[in-house]
C-alpha cells in the first residue's frame, strides 16, 4: 500500500535549565494510507513528543527538532515555514489530545471551535459552516447536534467533549489523524465507545491513524501495525500479530508479560519490568534497555543494536537477533501465548526446536 507519511531519523531535544534532554533519538517509521499504526511505550518514552513533532507543535523554546525528516506528500514538514505548516495542520494532518476536559477553549461555543478550522482551510462561513458542523456532530455521534452549537464545553460530559475534539480534528477530512492517548482520561465504558467511533470513522473516511497509547489492550483492538518505543527510540516494529504473538525484543516481552489476562493464575504476582527508564539528560551508551534486561549481554552495554529484519514487516533492535548471540528462552507467558494462538508460526516452531533465529 502507498506510504503517506514517512518519518526518518527524527530527533527532538529539550533544552532545560538542568541540561539538554534527548526526548526522541532517531525515530524512523512509515505510515500507509488508511492504516492504523500504534506507537506503544511507557510514560516518558517519547511517544507523545514524536506525535507533537510531526505536527510541529513542540514548544520552541525549550524544544527543538534537531535532526531528521518528516516526508508528507513529497514535502519535508521539518523544513516548512510556519505559514506553510499552518496550512498542513488541521487540513492534512489533524490531532486528538489526551484530556478532553482541558483541550477545549472554555470561553468559546462548540460551534465556533469547530467552525474555526472550516473557515481557515475551506473558507466555509455562515450557513455552509453551520451545515458542515452539524454533519460533523452527527458523524461523531452527538445527539441533538443543533442544540449543542451554542453550548460551552463545561456543559458537556467528558465523553461528549472528546467527541467534539474528534469532530474538530475531522473537520477538514485530514489524510492523517494523530490520536495521542485519546481514551486515557475517560471512563472504561466511554473508552470503548470512543474507540469504536474512531474505527467507524476510519472506515468511512479512509484516514490513516497514528495511535499513541500505553495500553496494549487498546492496541490489540485498534492497530494494524505496532511500533514499540523505549527511551526515545523505536525498538520493535511489526504487524499487530507479530508484536503480540512473535515478539523478539526483551522489552516487548516485558510489556506483554506485564499485561494481565483473565486466565492468569491469581496466586502468582504479575510479572513487572524491574527498574526505571534511563534519564534522557544523559542517554546511556549501548542499548538503553540493557540495565533492566535480564538477557543483557556485554555488547548491550557497549554498542547500540541496529534493527534486525525478521520478516518483511517485522524488525527488532536487539543484539539477541545477531547470528553470534546465544539462544535465550523467552518468558513463559510469551511462549505460552505464541504456542497457544499461533502454533504454526515460525516463532512457535523455533521455540519448540529450541532455536530462536
Amino acid at each position, binding site marked *: 500500500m502507498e506510504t503517506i507519511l514517512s518519518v526518518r531519523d527524527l530527533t527532538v531535544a529539550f533544552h532545560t535549565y538542568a541540561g539538554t534532554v534527548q526526548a526522541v533519538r532517531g525515530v524512523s517509521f512509515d505510515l500507509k494510507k488508511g492504516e492504523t499504526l500504534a506507537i506503544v511505550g511507557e510514560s516518558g518514552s517519547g511517544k507523545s513528543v514524536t506525535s507533537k513533532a510531526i*505536527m510541529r*507543535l513542540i514548544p520552541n*523554546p525549550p524544544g527543538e527538532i534537531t535532526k531528521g525528516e518528516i516526508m508528507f506528500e513529497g514535502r519535508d514538514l521539518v523544513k516548512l515555514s*510556519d*505559514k506553510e505548516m*499552518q*496550512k*498542513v*495542520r*488541521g*487540513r492534512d494532518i*489533524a*490531532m486528538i*489530545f489526551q*484530556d478532553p476536559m*482541558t*483541550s*477545549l*477553549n*472554555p*470561553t*468559546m461555543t462548540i460551534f465556533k471551535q469547530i467552525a*474555526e*478550522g472550516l473557515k*481557515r*482551510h475551506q473558507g466555509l462561513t455562515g450557513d455552509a459552516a453551520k451545515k458542515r458542523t452539524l454533519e460533523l456532530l452527527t458523524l461523531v455521534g452527538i445527539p441533538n447536534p443543533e442544540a449543542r452549537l451554542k453550548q*460551552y464545553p*463545561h*456543559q458537556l460530559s467528558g465523553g461528549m467533549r472528546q467527541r467534539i*475534539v474528534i469532530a*474538530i*480534528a475531522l*473537520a477538514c477530512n485530514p489524510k492523517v489523524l494523530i490520536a495521542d492517548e485519546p481514551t486515557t482520561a475517560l471512563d472504561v465504558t466511554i473508552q470503548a465507545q470512543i474507540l469504536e467511533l474512531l474505527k467507524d470513522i476510519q472506515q468511512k473516511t479512509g484516514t490513516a491513524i497514528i495511535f499513541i497509547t500505553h495500553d496494549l489492550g487498546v492496541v490489540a483492538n485498534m492497530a494494524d501495525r505496532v511500533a514499540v518505543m523505549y527511551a526515545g527510540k523505536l525498538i520493535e516494529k511489526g504487524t499487530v500479530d507479530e508484536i503480540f504473538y512473535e515478539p523478539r525484543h526483551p522489552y516487548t516481552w516485558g510489556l506483554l508479560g506485564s499485561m494481565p489476562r483473565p486466565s492468569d493464575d491469581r496466586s502468582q504476582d504479575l510479572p513487572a519490568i524491574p527498574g526505571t527508564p534511563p534519564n534522557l539528560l544523559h542517554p546511556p551508551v549501548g542499548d538503553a534497555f540493557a540495565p533492566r534486561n535480564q538477557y543483557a549481554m556485554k555488547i548491550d552495554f557497549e554498542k547500540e543494536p541496529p534493527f534486525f529484519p525478521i520478516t518483511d514487516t517485522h524488525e527488532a533492535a536487539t543484539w539477541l537477533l545477531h547470528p553470534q548471540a546465544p539462544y535465550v528462552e523467552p518468558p513463559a507467558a510469551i511462549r505460552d501465548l505464541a504456542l497457544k494462538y499461533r502454533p504454526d508460526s515460525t516463532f512457535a516452531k523455533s521455540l519448540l526446536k529450541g532455536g530462536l533465529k
Partner: protein
Amino acid sequence: MGRYLAQRLVYGVLTFLLIASFTFFLMDLLPGSPFQNQEKLSPEQLDILRDKYNLNDPLPQRYAAYMVNLVQGDLGVSFKYDSRPVTDLIMERIGPSAQLGVQALVLGVLLGLVLGVVAALRHNTAVDYGAMFISVLGISVPSFVFASLLQYYIGVKWGVLPVAFWESPAHTILPTVSLSLGVTASIARFVRTEMLEVTGQDYVTLAKAKGLDGQSITWKHMVRNALIPAITILGPMTAALITGTFVIEKIFAVPGLGELFVSSITQNDYTVIMGTTLFFSAVFIFMILLVDILYGVVDPRIRLGGSK
C-alpha cells in the same frame, strides 16, 4: 446567579453599615476638637457651639441620629466651611476626582494590557525583560515620588505642561499619568502571568493543531481567557486609585475629594472626615460588587451556572 448577586448585595450593604458605625465611634475617640484651633473661645461660647452641632447629646442618641440621617443621604454639616452640608462639599469635589480616577484607570488598564500581552508573547526576550522592568519600577516607585519628579522636570524645568491646578485638559495630563503608573504596572504583571499560564493550556495547542495563524490564536484563544481573571484585580485597583488621589491631588493642587479628605484630617473636621470616608467606602464596595457581576458576564462557566 440571581441569588448569588442578592447575597453579594446584602454583604455590601452590611459592610457599609458596619463601616459607618465603626467610623462614628472612632470619631468620638478622636483627640482634639474642631473648634480648638479657631479664635480663643470661652467655655460658654464653646458650649454654645457644641450645642449647635448636637455634640452635647449622649453618644447613643447622636449615633441613632447620624445613622437615620445617613440612610436618608444626609451626612451632616461641616464644622468648617461655614456649616455647609457635607453632601454638598462632596458633590462639589467629586468631579475632578472622578475624572482623574477614570482617566488614570483607562490609561493604566490599556497600557498595562498591551505591556502584559506583548511581554508574554515575547517571553524571555529583551522585550519581555524590558516590559517587566518597567512594571517592577511602576510597582516600586511610590506615586508621590513619581509625581514630584514629573512635576519638577516636565512642569517646572522644561515648562511643557502646567505645574498644578485643574483648569484645562492639559492640566489633567500630569496627575493622570502619575496616578496611572501603579495601575499600568500591576495590570501588566498580572496579564503577563495569566497569558503565560494560558500559553501552556491544551486548548491553545489544539488551536494551533487546527492550523490557525498566530494572530487568531493570540486574540481569540489566549487574550480572552487571560483577561477574565484580570477583572478581579480591578477591585484592589480602585482602592489603590483612591489612595493615589490623596497624594496626587495634594501635589497637583487638584480640588478633589482626596484633597478634601486630607485637609479635613488636619482640621479635625469630623463630619467631613466621616462623610468622605463613607463615600470612599461606598465606591470601593460598589467596585467589588461590579467586579463580581462583570466576572459572571464575561465567563460563561459562571454566567450559565454548571460545574467549573
